[in-house]
């Protein structure tokens, strides 16, 4: 057994007091009008830009110190691109990213350098994100080396301390990544991310590549790290239950836009946007005695971000869509009756509840099959009553 459970005392002893707790009034990071368009090149013999994948198309949100903001959405909605924009791994096409009041969206290398140590990232794939030719010690001390930081007691002692915090054996300092399992590798990734005591960690699907039982270990570890060190998280995931467990505020993305953002409780129990309703209704519940919620079954897949629908982007799959939705893009605003900070981008919002009285089946194949079954069942019944 190489993993040990992280004891809270081990964390508390090695880490200074949570910082910037008093700053919670002003956002740590604030994003306005953020866009990322990837050009599509085509043509011969001279390549021209023939279009753009509008991966992220105008985001506004704030991240406060010490909180966890969840970003959920289906594949291709731009949540990972957003994560990479926040860490400047991608250059934004437009918009501003302010970190502690300073715009970093156009900062050059030298201006970014001191900020990079405060914004760290945890990646999805624990196999691809660790250099196979470096030992664990070298990987985790990398950030300290680059930023020329010499912690008291030396870097090696600090790395061993970090290994212990994330529940690995400090004696594994000289091992290589291939000697670890997926869950252990993700722990190494966490140790590297917290090595410089950052203020913000962008976690891009940190647990989705892991088995269920290991997933829970890593979620608990991240939660401990967040609470003990007071680090703010942007937690990107597609699993609504994991996001709910980890994040105090949640933003739902669809085709490069935020369609709804709210505190956890409002979003999961009083959602207003039809897409949020559909997402929540689609999650399979392991509790077979849970009150059967009426289903919402959307039609087809998410449209292409190369030419997103006009107006509201969800309208092509929405059961409430009207002419207005095609011509006018709904702004992300506060709707009457919602809690402070609960913003929704919809012209015709749903009632603030997850209960509904009738099923919505947009999928034509499902509707046809179910109709046929119903007709057959009725036919049988009338046959029986006649017989």
């Amino acid at each position, binding site marked *: 057994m190489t993993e040990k459970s992280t004891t809270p005392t081990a964390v508390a002893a090695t880490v200074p007091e949570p910082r910037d707790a008093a700053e919670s009034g002003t956002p740590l990071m604030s994003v306005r009008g953020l866009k990322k368009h990837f050009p599509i090149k085509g043509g011969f013999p001279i390549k021209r830009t023939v279009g753009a994948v509008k991966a992220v198309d105008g985001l506004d949100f704030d991240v406060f110190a010490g909180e966890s903001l969840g970003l959920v959405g289906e594949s291709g909605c731009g949540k990972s691109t957003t994560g990479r924009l926040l860490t400047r791994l991608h250059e934004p096409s437009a918009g501003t990213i302010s970190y502690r009041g300073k715009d970093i969206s156009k900062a050059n290398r030298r201006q970014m350098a001191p900020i990079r140590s405060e914004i760290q990232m945890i990646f999805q794939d624990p196999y691809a994100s660790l250099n196979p030719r470096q030992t664990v010690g070298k990987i985790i001390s990398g950030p300290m080396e680059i930023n020329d930081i010499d912690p008291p007691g030396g870097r090696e002692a600090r790395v061993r301390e970090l290994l212990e915090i994330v529940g690995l054996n400090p004696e594994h300092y000289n091992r290589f990544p291939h000697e670890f399992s997926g*869950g252990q590798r993700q722990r190494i990734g966490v140790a590297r991310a917290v090595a410089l005591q950052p203020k913000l960690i962008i976690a891009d699907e940190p647990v989705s590549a892991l088995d269920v*039982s*290991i997933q829970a270990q890593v*979620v608990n570890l991240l939660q401990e790290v967040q609470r003990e060190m007071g680090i703010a998280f942007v937690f990107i995931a597609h699993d609504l239950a994991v996001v709910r467990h980890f994040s105090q505020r949640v933003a739902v993305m669809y085709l490069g836009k935020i369609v709804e953002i709210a505190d956890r409780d409002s979003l999961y129990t009083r959602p207003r946007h039809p897409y949020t309703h559909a997402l929540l209704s689609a*999650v*399979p519940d392991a*509790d*077979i005695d849970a009150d059967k919620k009426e289903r919402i079954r959307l039609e087809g897949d998410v449209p292409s971000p190369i030419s997103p629908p006009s107006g509201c982007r969800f309208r092509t799959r929405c059961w409430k869509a009207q002419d207005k939705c095609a011509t006018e893009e709904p702004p992300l605003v506060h709707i009457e009756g919602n809690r402070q900070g609960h913003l929704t981008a919809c012209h015709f919002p749903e009632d603030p509840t997850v209960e509904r009285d009738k099923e919505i089946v947009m999928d034509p194949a*499902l509707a046809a099959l179910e109709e046929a079954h119903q007709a057959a069942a009725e036919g049988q019944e009338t046959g029986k009553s006649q017989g």
Partner: protein
Amino acid sequence: MTTLTKTEGSPATTGSDSFLSVRDLFVHFTTEDGIVKAVDGLSFDLERGQTLGIVGESGSGKSVTNLSILGLHNKKSTSIDGEILLDGKELVNATESEMERLRGNKMAMIFQDSLTALSPYYTVGRQISEPFRKHTGASKKEARDRAIEMLTKVGIPHAKQRVDDYPHQFSGGMRQRAMIAMSLVCNPSLLIADEPTTALDVTVQAQILDLLKDLQQEFGSAIVMITHDLGVVANMADDILVMYAGRAVERGSVREVLKAPQHPYTWGLLGSMPRLSGDVDEPLLPIPGSPPSLLNPPTGCAFHPRCAFTDKVPGDACATERPVLPTGRAAACHLSAEQKQQVYIETIQPRLG
């Protein structure tokens, strides 16, 4: 090693008359590092029109079991022992031509990754009609009409035009639908779905699961549903088989396994899973450690190094003696029935919320 060859009790029914019946199945792979015991004495039964959910983590042997039912394993490096009866016909020792007559006809499979499972060189329509032509002797025209009919049934819009598309022209959800159409084209009585929705988004997953359920009602197929997602089995399955390290550790109906689980591993799976309605301030209850290597599985109960309840068992039975999975609704664990119930009610259930 007498404990390893001890057979598991047969499932609830007498077995011989059930539609699919697997008895004492052993699948071992010879590798450079030694013998991998991917499936190690597995038995289960499945009736027509029923759905069996096989749950387990990666490397628990759930996929290998089903590849060996279909005869899709590499015969050179695999040794299979035991009995697989499909409608009374023995499959373990069946010849390749016999298997070919059954595959795609009486039994079919839906794979996880539709992009790799479909050939990029042939149109979707051709891939759907190929098994139909082979098994029914239909003409090209009839097979094409059948492909269009199946594509319409699984909800591909404009099936008449899309039948001539190549897989890369379909989106992920549509490819999975096309694969379902391909597997159902000959009305198979056994359908094996290996993580059919793991690569899909939740809204599309919900569509596909509902579609499978509705099609099962129409075709009356038996479905083996392999997944790691307890939410998916809760939705789809009638019975559940929980696998760990190549062995079945718990068996029962959906209600029994999810509402009154008996095996510590099942408790761990349920405790690891955050829920939409659970208490957010309670930390999750992960299983410590990681799944064992099948090259060298732990002695006795394969789960004992990760189990929190070994001290409740007298002596060191957990480490030395392999627990047997008794007949019917049961769990392969050395804890006594009272102990299991007591532990579950006192320590596990309150934390599941």
